[in-house]
């Protein structure tokens, strides 16, 4: 049975009731893994509360940070500071240089382009060629698509269609997430997959984008952040002076 994941939830972190409602709704809709976007200076008590709430609802919890750097140097500085503290690192690419740097860097998990204006979306063929040498996935946030209407929605769908085609052609994984701040913005995994039809994704790819791909990203990062991880394919199995016994 497929395990569905939503890797971008943004509940209001000051209101515990709202956080719990969002997690409860996500569980009801069938998600088994959620990643919640946290600020860099998050209180440990909040993280513990989120972990406990997710566990009580039977859903797996992953921590996520969204970086919005103004330059590629700022991105590199942020990655150095935050990579090992969060299980998922997403970068909002607001300029071309940031987009290129994020695509190249193996520490970045998600490339997001938060604008509906095609001139502010930098996922083109060149970006894809850089990204296919890294590990970053192309993230599609559905909240923006549900929010805009008319001409702006048409423009966004047109951009997404081109970007999805570029990502597929270059073998870049695509992740669909809700980017929900409240339960009204959450949609079930099959519903998100059906929305993906609007910008040219077939049913199989869309379902993989809400299940297999995001789960693989979290699994990969958890292995890397584990204390026994040394390098790809190399793990510490046992420590001690006499490791033969």
């Amino acid at each position, binding site marked *: 049975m497929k395990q569905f994941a939503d890797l971008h939830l943004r509940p209001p972190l000051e209101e515990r009731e709202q956080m719990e409602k969002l997690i409860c709704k996500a569980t009801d809709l069938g998600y088994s893994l959620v990643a919640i976007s946290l600020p860099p200076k998050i209180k440990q008590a909040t993280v513990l509360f989120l972990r406990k709430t997710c566990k009580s609802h039977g859903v797996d919890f992953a921590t996520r940070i969204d970086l919005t750097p103004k330059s590629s140097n700022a991105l590199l500085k942020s990655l150095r500071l935050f990579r090992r503290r969060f299980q998922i690192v997403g970068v909002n690419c607001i300029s071309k240089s940031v987009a290129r740097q994020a695509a190249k860097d193996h520490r970045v998990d998600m490339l997001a382009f938060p604008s509906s204006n095609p001139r502010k979306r930098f996922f083109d063929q060149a970006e894809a060629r850089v990204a296919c040498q890294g590990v970053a996935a192309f993230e599609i946030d559905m909240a923006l*698509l549900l929010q805009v209407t008319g001409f702006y929605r048409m423009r966004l769908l047109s951009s997404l269609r081109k970007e999805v085609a570029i990502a597929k052609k270059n073998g870049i994984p695509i992740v669909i997430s809700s980017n929900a701040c409240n*339960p009204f913005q959450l949609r*079930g995994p099959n519903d998100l997959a*059906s*929305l993906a*039809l609007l910008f040219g994704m077939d049913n199989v790819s869309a379902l993989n984008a809400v299940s297999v791909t995001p789960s693989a990203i979290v699994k990969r990062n958890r292995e890397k952040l584990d204390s026994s991880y040394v390098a790809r394919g190399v793990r510490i199995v046992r420590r001690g002076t006499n490791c033969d016994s």
Partner: protein
Amino acid sequence: MNAIWDMVYQLFGEFGASQTALFLVKRDNEKGIVIVRCSHKALNMVRAAITAVTDINRKHAVIRVVAVSGTLKALRRKLFEH
């Protein structure tokens, strides 16, 4: 139902809306469940439109697709299980 029609019209236009053959079968206000029928070829379009509904009569609302089936009998069975 108007909200769904409006969204189908917004997303797919008159031509797209004409392909859906969408109509209401049953509505249960108490349980908040609506059964609609559409052309099987337009299922994904209708599903996308239903998902894209964000308000009904200017109030925040979300419509969730609970079950899809080819026959009413099987659909009622799935709803009962749900």
